[in-house]
């Protein structure tokens, strides 16, 4: 097994910054949520890789990834429920148009 730990970290870095770029440039709420999923996945890869390479006898990173996946699923479910409700009430889905709470 000769794949170095750096290669995994570089892949997760690319994924994280793709997510950040999407978060900056997208205006649709669902596209924003997709970018957040990319960022969460990058951190999950990092946890698993650090656990496997640096502490192969422990399981902390493994379980953190597991709980991270569960929390990401919960977050997505609630966020999509909120977005569907916003669309039903305001008929808008773009961040520029949802200004009811603006002071």
């Amino acid at each position: 097994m000769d794949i170095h730990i750096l290669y995994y970290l570089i892949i997760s870095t690319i994924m994280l910054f793709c997510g950040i770029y999407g978060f900056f440039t997208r205006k649709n709420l669902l596209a924003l949520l997709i970018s957040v999923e990319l960022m969460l996945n990058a951190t999950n890869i990092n946890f698993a890789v650090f656990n496997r390479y640096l502490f192969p006898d422990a399981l902390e990173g493994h379980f953190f990834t597991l709980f991270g996946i569960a929390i990401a699923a919960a977050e997505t479910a609630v966020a999509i429920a909120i977005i569907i409700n916003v669309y039903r009430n305001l008929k808008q889905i773009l961040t520029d148009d949802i200004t009811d709470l603006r002071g």
Partner: protein
Amino acid sequence: MNITLLEAVFYVLSAIIAVCAVLTVTTGKILRSATYLLFVLFGTAGIYFLLGYTFLGAVQLMVYAGGIVVLYVFSILLTRSDKDMRYKIGKAKLVSALLTCGVGAALVIFLICTNTFAWTEIPQDIIELPAHKIGMDLIGTGKYQYILPFEVVSVLLLACMIGGILIARKH
């Protein structure tokens, strides 16, 4: 130059992840964006399999690829947002976002490449993590065992289910 099977699989997976992650945030149609996200999640599951965490890879496939992406596709169709992606972004904002991400990614890659802890670490032989050990650790009460977070996550999922139903139901 010998390339083992594991290395070849890793390079293919990382190429898929990198290309699809870029396409996810740059494509103009949101349904395509969700599809590229699905491929990124498949690649992530493949990396978990490669690391020997087969249970984690299976969870990733089931929860993300099976659950979350389907949820995304349904909500995209429900909110009719597949035609809403043709908006204009200001050139200054686009340039600043690109600059931020480029500089940030270059900085992070520079930091992890010049960090010495990663180079001195010898890669271990990858063996599959047995599911029996995962189960015993997940429901054990001893040191480095995770019964309390397990229960907390189950309560969190219940709360999210109730919250989702309450928020999304018709009044």
